[in-house]
């Protein structure tokens, strides 16, 4: 297992956002997290990336506990993420945005940047090459010099994925990547997720677009009111009664 959650609970004040959630994500799979609004999906991502500490339970990534580790350290460990609401960096161009993602894999500091040492220049150049490759991967190489926030919505979403990939993760967490996308954009996204898997990166994705999820995910968990109600392959989930009940309600007898 690359990522393992063990009886993870989180409460904010008296409100339990997650209660006793356990599941494991295998290396190389595309893993889905679904559930109605407010089920605790984004909270789950925030716990994995160290934004909030867990109230109880354990999260193990690649054999190491991520509990109590600061967010930027979890990125260094190999966990990258995107955001439910796009959070790109103001005035940066697309290329700079991706370069920013490579921050934790590079080392130039204040002095070498000021002196433009040979090592710094070589590193910058190499990074630009790799960043451009990531832009090509998400089909944005034409927009390398465009200001990120001026790009159309669908492109901004893909740029966010490129920025996350640039941190060279083992695991990428996608928070509603298809939100607000039309059918053709969603199709591009589906192919992109396939490409990410082919890079050997494990994907965990939160999404409401069921067709997409059933299509791309190897396995899924379903959350409702902060509890895991089901886990399994798309087939198993689709036929699971607890899931149907959570989404459609119980039939009156």
């Amino acid at each position, binding site marked *: 297992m690359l990522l393992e959650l063990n009886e993870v609970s989180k409460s904010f004040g008296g409100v339990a956002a997650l209660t006793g959630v356990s599941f494991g994500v295998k290396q190389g799979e595309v893993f889905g997290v679904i559930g109605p609004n407010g089920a605790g999906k984004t909270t789950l991502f925030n716990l994995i990336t160290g934004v909030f500490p867990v109230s109880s339970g354990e999260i193990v990534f690649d054999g190491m506990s991520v509990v109590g580790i600061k967010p*930027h350290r979890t*990125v*260094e460990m190999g966990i990258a993420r995107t955001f439910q609401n796009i*959070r790109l960096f103001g005035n*940066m161009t697309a*290329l700079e945005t991706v*370069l*920013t993602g490579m921050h934790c894999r590079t080392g130039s500091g204040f002095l070498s*940047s000021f002196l433009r040492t040979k090592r710094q220049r070589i590193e910058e150049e190499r990074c630009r090459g790799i960043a451009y490759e990531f832009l090509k991967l998400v089909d944005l190489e034409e927009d390398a010099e465009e200001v990120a926030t001026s790009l159309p919505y669908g492109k901004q979403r893909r740029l966010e994925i490129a920025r996350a990939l640039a941190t060279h993760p083992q695991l990428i967490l996608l928070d509603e990547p298809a939100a607000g996308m039309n059918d053709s954009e969603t199709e591009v996204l589906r192919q992109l997720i396939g490409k990410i898997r082919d890079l050997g990166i494990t994907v965990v994705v939160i999404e409401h677009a069921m067709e997409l999820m059933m299509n791309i995910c190897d396995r899924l968990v379903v959350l409702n009111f902060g509890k895991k109600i089901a886990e399994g392959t798309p087939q198993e989930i689709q036929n699971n009664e607890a899931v149907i009940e959570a989404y459609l309600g119980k039939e009156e007898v």
Partner: protein
Amino acid sequence: MDLLNPYYLQIVMFFIINAIMGISIYFTLASGQLSLGAAGFMSVGAYVGAMLSLKADLPIIVGIIIGGLVASLVAVIIGLPTTRLRGLYLAIATLGFGEVVRVIFLNLDVTNGALGLSGIPSIPQELTNYAYEFDIDGLMGLDAVTWGNLMAIIILLVVLALIIAFCVRINNSRVGRAFAAIKADDHAAELMGINVVYYKMMAFIIGAFIAGIGGGLYAHITNFINPTDFSYHKVVQILLFPVFGGSNVVWGSVLGSFILTLLPEVLRFLSDYRDIIYGALLVILMAVRPDGILTESMVDKISRKLGFKKAPYIPESQVLTERFEAYKRKQEEKQG
């Protein structure tokens, strides 16, 4: 020559020092922190530098550098708790720090309290002495005092150029991108692997160092300092430079301090109405250009036109292609 009279030359010197002070605010602002401690750090640099050259008889340049270092040391202590604050809270805390420093200097015996320090060795004066020594008095029709002032200006310009070069180069690097990311969205920056606390702290410390250097230069230009030089009023004045000139680019502070240092002198003929016009100009500019005169895209365009900035060179890279292939091989091995 009329243009080179000591009064004009002194205004040029104050413009350069103001530009340095403006940049010290800009640098901290570039990481999204509004610190109003500039006058406090400036006074630390000024007092430490002045006392070292006045009482310990150290060379002026050594005093100024140590003054800058002490200011950044103070920034470490102040920054540990305050860089965790955001927005207005940081502004208020650092403003308070400036006042505390002022009151300390006001009450210490070594700093001569409210009377301040006088007779600080002055850079133009020292250089004038050199001018006499090397017998360039009267060279090109300029007397030794003018030569001394001109050389002082050149030294100040070199310091300013170094600081600008530092900012520009940092800006176009990994560190500058980290700053920009933090300024735009510090939460997202943290989740892209940027150590936000570290970079905020470094911006704070380097900003303090620049302010300390500015203070040291100030003390050795005016040869007299007292605590009221570094009051709350001073911070507001310094803050106006980046805000007026454009707070998103280093050149904004330079332009802002140029205009705002000259303006009161140019408007001198208005006598009593001077401050009214000065204030009105500020209000108009903020209404018309809330981001200041210079913006990032403007500077970008200008430097592209002048040929300083080219489209970034992007080398061929095969890192991802190789990774795809490696994965494919691995999958085939698994199946085979």
